[in-house]
């Protein structure tokens, strides 16, 4: 976009003989003095007591030029000042490129997708259709109670955890309120109360990475459910093995919703020929994981390899509850990093 901004604004200057032969142009991102190069060229991108714009001046093809360190930005007015030797300073202002104004971004989905969340729900993952601006979550995400009142202190403050594209935001429910017997838990209770109704509201005013608000606001209504305090146990999972020769999906029923983002990478299927390549699907409100193989299944013994860091909605890991009752021998817990679940293809 910046390169399309090829402006050749020529300033018809002044009263003095020296100034009459001088003009300042903006060519792409290059500020250029057309005329005698003897003098200084300084560009400002702000008003008041501010430093000049960072960049380098040089003589190029006999002309004094200034190359900003960074591209020109929308909404900024640039003031170029040329001070010829022994002459009066002349200046010219240029506007940066036009801002985009057409909204394109929206909230595509939110995980967990269920409409009942445990009262010790740990994290919320928000998927946007476009890259978003950082630093706005505090203002733009609200949790309302059943009466529409905005609740305070629901999320861990000051923690916007983005993916590298700024399209997925991870919010953490205040762990101090979730962890039993902490001060926050005792005085404020958990962020979500069992059987109460809530609405998550994400404002339309949240700006995308180009500074444009979203197409529309987003709302998700959910109800608090009982806290989930016990660790997921793969031995209780139900594995539906497809028949040999088919390309049907292998299906794992967890018996409870699991963490959507971790299901993308913490389960794999290994057989005699190595890991089974395929497409991962997460269905039934994250309580079901499917692997559709690229090729047909061959008969034999397989195992599902589970990263022990896989979590359910409440942050309970495999064999390790989120908050462990210390009377339950907790010191032996970090022993293995994977757990295997065998099955057979016939």
């Amino acid at each position, binding site marked *: 976009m910046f390169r399309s901004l090829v402006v050749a604004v020529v300033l018809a200057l002044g009263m003095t003989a020296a100034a009459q032969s001088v003009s300042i142009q903006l060519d792409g991102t290059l500020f250029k003095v057309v005329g005698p190069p003897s003098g200084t060229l300084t560009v400002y991108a702000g008003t008041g007591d501010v430093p000049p714009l960072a960049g380098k001046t040089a003589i190029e093809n006999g002309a004094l030029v200034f190359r900003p360190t960074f591209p020109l930005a929308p909404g900024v007015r640039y003031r170029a000042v040329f001070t010829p030797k022994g002459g009066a300073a002349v200046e010219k202002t240029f506007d940066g490129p036009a801002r985009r104004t057409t909204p394109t971004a929206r909230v595509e989905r939110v995980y967990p997708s269920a409409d009942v969340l445990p009262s010790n729900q740990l994290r919320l993952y928000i998927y946007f259709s476009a890259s978003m601006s950082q630093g706005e979550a505090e203002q733009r995400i609200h949790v309302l109670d059943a009466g529409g009142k905005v609740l305070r202190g629901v999320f861990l403050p000051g923690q916007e955890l983005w993916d590298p594209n700024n399209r997925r935001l991870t919010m953490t429910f205040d762990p*101090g309120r979730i962890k039993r017997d902490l001060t926050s838990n005792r005085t404020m209770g958990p962020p979500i109360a069992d059987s109460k109704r809530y609405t998550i509201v994400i404002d339309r005013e949240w700006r995308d990475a180009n500074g444009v608000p979203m197409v529309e606001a987003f709302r998700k209504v959910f109800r608090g459910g009982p806290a989930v305090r016990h660790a997921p146990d793969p031995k209780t999972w139900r594995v539906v093995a497809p028949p040999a020769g088919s390309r049907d999906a292998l299906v794992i029923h967890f018996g409870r919703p699991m963490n959507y983002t971790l299901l993308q990478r913490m389960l794999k299927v290994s057989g005699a020929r190595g890991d089974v390549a395929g497409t991962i699907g997460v269905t039934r409100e994250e309580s079901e994981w499917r692997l559709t193989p690229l090729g047909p299944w061959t008969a034999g013994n397989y195992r599902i390899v589970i990263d022990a860091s896989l979590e359910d909605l409440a942050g309970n890991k495999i064999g390790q509850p989120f908050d462990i009752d*210390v009377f339950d021998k907790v010191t032996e817990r970090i022993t293995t990093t994977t757990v295997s679940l065998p099955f057979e293809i016939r």
Partner: protein
Amino acid sequence: MHYRKLMTRAALAGGFAIALVLTVHAARTPAVAAGDLAGGSAGLKSAGALAFGPDGVLFVGDSAGGAIAAIDTADRTPAGSAANINVQGIDEKIAALVGVMPGDILLNDVAVNPISKNVYVSAARGRGPDAAPLVVRVDASGKLTLLALDNIKHETVSLSDAPVANPTARQNPRTQTITDMAFVNGNVMVAGMSNEEWSSALRSIPYPFKAAAKGTQLQIWHASHGRYETQSPVRTFVPYTIDGQQYVLAAYTCTPLVKIPVSDLKAGAQVKGVTISDLGSGNQPLDMVPYKKDGHEFILIANSSFGVVKLHADNLGQYKPIDSPTVVDVAGAPYDKITAVTNVRHLTQFDASRALVLTSAGGGGFGPATGPFNLQTVALP
């Protein structure tokens, strides 16, 4: 002077257990001279947490890039009688320097070069994924200098031992946000928080990096809030000496302030820390500055919703580690509220008698980051 007991609640009698889960640890070598660093682009994708090391070396946390860069500031001229810093509208000045509107500057951290007393500010030019990382030096006269991160002597260590991402995804969506850093006993200590799994990595990386692999990674456990324990990511921490022993004072995302003995952070060891204080529910310590004044020890703490407090730290050595999860009634360290300093977003030590604060017209803590932002030294209370 208003004293107040921070905690008398049984819930804060907690100890903290630390289990080492990764032991890629190299022998420490003497700190390298900054002149040994190689020139070129530092390769930063973001500039977040800052911490000064030896010889004018500045550690820059790059959460987006999953790395720590040690950059040579070439700023080794000792300050004389350092003047006060007072830069009004630092966000507007940085915005003008890099050519954007002030609202498109995100200020991330501040650090003071202990040699020159120049201030370094990390920031982002823009709010999207392509935002350019910035490190700006501010001298006592208020002059701003943009560090040329594309051509600077530096050394980098990658933190990307993250689990393998979904191979079908085009880009690994997992990131490890660096929440704080400090240089302690020749090691860069790094606290982080993942955007996927709930983890509590506290990493210790010997400097210089080339001899260090990825350092030692610790897993932090919050060992007894009542009778439960959980993994507890660190939000902010600061090195501190108590009775001649080196500790890390750490504040967790969910818990009170604790002390962790650095000497015990060895491979294979389990370490018990001890709770010092809790500044109330719904509150998060942002930054801490330990200092001495009039023969007494204090810790100045900027909080997300509790303002600035001065913790009386003379007796921290008397707090004994709690080896069992038994609930014990413990009094927390007393503190004073410091009402003269408000709207603090960042706090760091300037010298023995002054702190440096970054304040926002939009309020302190994690409120809307509305400018103007001001950078100024304040006398340690």
